């Protein structure tokens, strides 16, 4: 087969997949904000075209980023990063933004070298979980900046006080919490630990963990589970395991497989739809010679039916959805 023929096949395949998503496909429920690398933010409110657009401050010293919807007010949580020049002088604070990306108030201020990552409010906005990591001087470790140890802090937003610290959970690429980590009843949150050599040495298993704020204990609830997210309408979580998407009732422990990937399919991202009826997934289909195509769909949690949708591509970018 010549490369010219190969190219025609690839283009035809891409067209076929592109055309399979019709113009009358349903629109995504809820509000989605996409945050692009250059700081431009677009809000989609039930439409495939953005209803609002603004640019976050991106200066030589101060930068805003990491927007996450608040659940009860028309605001965002996020971070204000301050770069005073040296690597160890870098720091980032937890702040609240309005719908134009301006700071309303500062919630948690860090010391130099402390960096706040993801910020996730609980369902009633009474608690805020955020990740924090420390970056040390260049002399102590030149490449530490690539991969730092993370901890989780929980802040009571009403008292504006840190009420819990979960220290040294993992490195940037061996620990993750996704939107939304908070359980519906706000008694705790879920996070994911990935397998690595250090963890193996400590006989610590990879998987989905549930942290209980009441007794301050972490428990492995889904061995080898990945990408765990909690519903904000019911006490359920969704996660990926064995190339499938499962939904589990937290109270009963019953789990149900709602989606199984095809042989060449990789799931890039999942999210509960705000109406609690669907799991949104962004996926890729891999062919050969590094050729892949991408798509998005909704999977009905009750029936398993797949629904194509008018897509905006948020699952392949940084976004927040409520």
């Amino acid at each position, binding site marked *: 087969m010549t*490369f010219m023929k190969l*190219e025609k096949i*690839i*283009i035809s395949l891409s067209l076929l997949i592109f055309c399979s998503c019709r113009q009358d496909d349903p629109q995504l429920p809820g509000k989605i904000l996409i945050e692009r*690398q*250059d700081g431009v933010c677009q809000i989609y409110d039930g439409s495939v075209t953005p209803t609002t657009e603004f640019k976050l401050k991106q200066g030589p010293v101060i*930068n805003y*980023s*990491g927007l996450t919807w608040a659940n009860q007010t028309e605001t965002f949580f996020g971070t204000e*990063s301050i*770069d005073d020049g040296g*690597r160890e002088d*870098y720091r*980032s604070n937890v702040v609240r933004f309005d719908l134009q990306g301006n700071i309303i108030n500062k919630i948690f201020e860090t010391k130099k070298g402390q*960096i*706040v*990552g*993801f910020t996730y409010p609980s369902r009633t906005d009474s608690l805020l979980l955020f*990740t924090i*990591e420390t*970056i040390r001087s*260049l002399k102590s*470790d*030149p*490449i*530490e*900046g*690539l*991969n730092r140890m993370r901890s989780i802090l929980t802040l009571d937003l009403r008292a504006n006080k840190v009420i819990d610290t979960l220290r040294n959970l993992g*490195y*940037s*690429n*061996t620990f993750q919490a996704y939107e939304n980590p908070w359980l519906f009843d706000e008694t705790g949150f879920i996070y994911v630990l*990935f*397998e*690595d*050599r250090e963890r*193996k040495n400590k006989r610590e298993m*990879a998987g989905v963990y549930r942290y209980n704020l009441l007794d301050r204990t972490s428990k492995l609830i889904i061995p080898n589970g*990945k*990408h765990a997210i909690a519903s904000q309408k019911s006490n359920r979580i969704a996660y*990926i395991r064995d*190339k499938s998407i499962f939904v589990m009732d937290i109270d009963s422990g019953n789990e149900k497989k709602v989606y199984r990937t095809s042989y060449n399919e*990789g*799931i*890039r*991202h*999942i999210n509960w739809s705000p109406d609690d009826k669907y799991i949104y997934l*962004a*996926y*890729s289909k891999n062919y050969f*010679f*590094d*050729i*892949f195509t*991408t798509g998005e769909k909704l999977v009905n949690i009750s029936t398993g039916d797949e629904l194509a949708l008018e897509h905006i*591509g948020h699952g*392949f*970018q*940084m976004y927040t959805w409520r």
Partner: protein
Amino acid sequence: MSKFSERIDAQLNGDEQPSEANKKEATNEHGAEVKQQNALQEKPTWYYMLKTEGGEHGFAYDPNKNIIYEVNHPHNGHTNGGVNWIKGLFGKSDGVKSTVYQWNMSNPRQEAAFWAFGKDADGNGGRGKLLLSPVELTNPDAATAFFQSMKGQEYDDYNLARDNCMHYAIRGFAKGGLVGGVALCSPEPSKWPGTYTMSWSSGSRPTPLISPVSGYVRPFPPR
């Protein structure tokens, strides 16, 4: 000469193996390694960085600003994979082109996006193992200016064989005063010409050596 200076000289001359305490490792979800051997150099050093899993790929890393520079698939590796390569091979310029990325690793969102580049939710793909080797630059500000002027742009010259990820990294190093370059299409330095003084073992566990990068220059295609 102080013991410290003697040790640096010995390392730069390849006379001394770095101690265990001087090896830095971190692991990712594949159990793979981010690994380097410190050069214990007094002045700030940049790094040529190599990804091996799922295809070789080269980056430039400035640890002083904690920023990684690279040319890669558009849309964070989530769309159009490989199609632009094929188009480039045939000299076509249509379609979505490769993109110039700049990852500020001090920003957790960008750091997470860097590690998640092209990775699916099941943990497949992504960056995998990274290997780093120090690069001595006499004018790092010029390298920074070059890389930052390219941020977010489409990489018009991308061509799988002649001007790819590794050429972009080395082009920036050259702006920073590196007398060196690359000639072959593989981003792995062990496959570069013998005149290249930085050596990487070509075994299954390549080990970056501590010698600074310098060597043969191949002219890049004109921009």
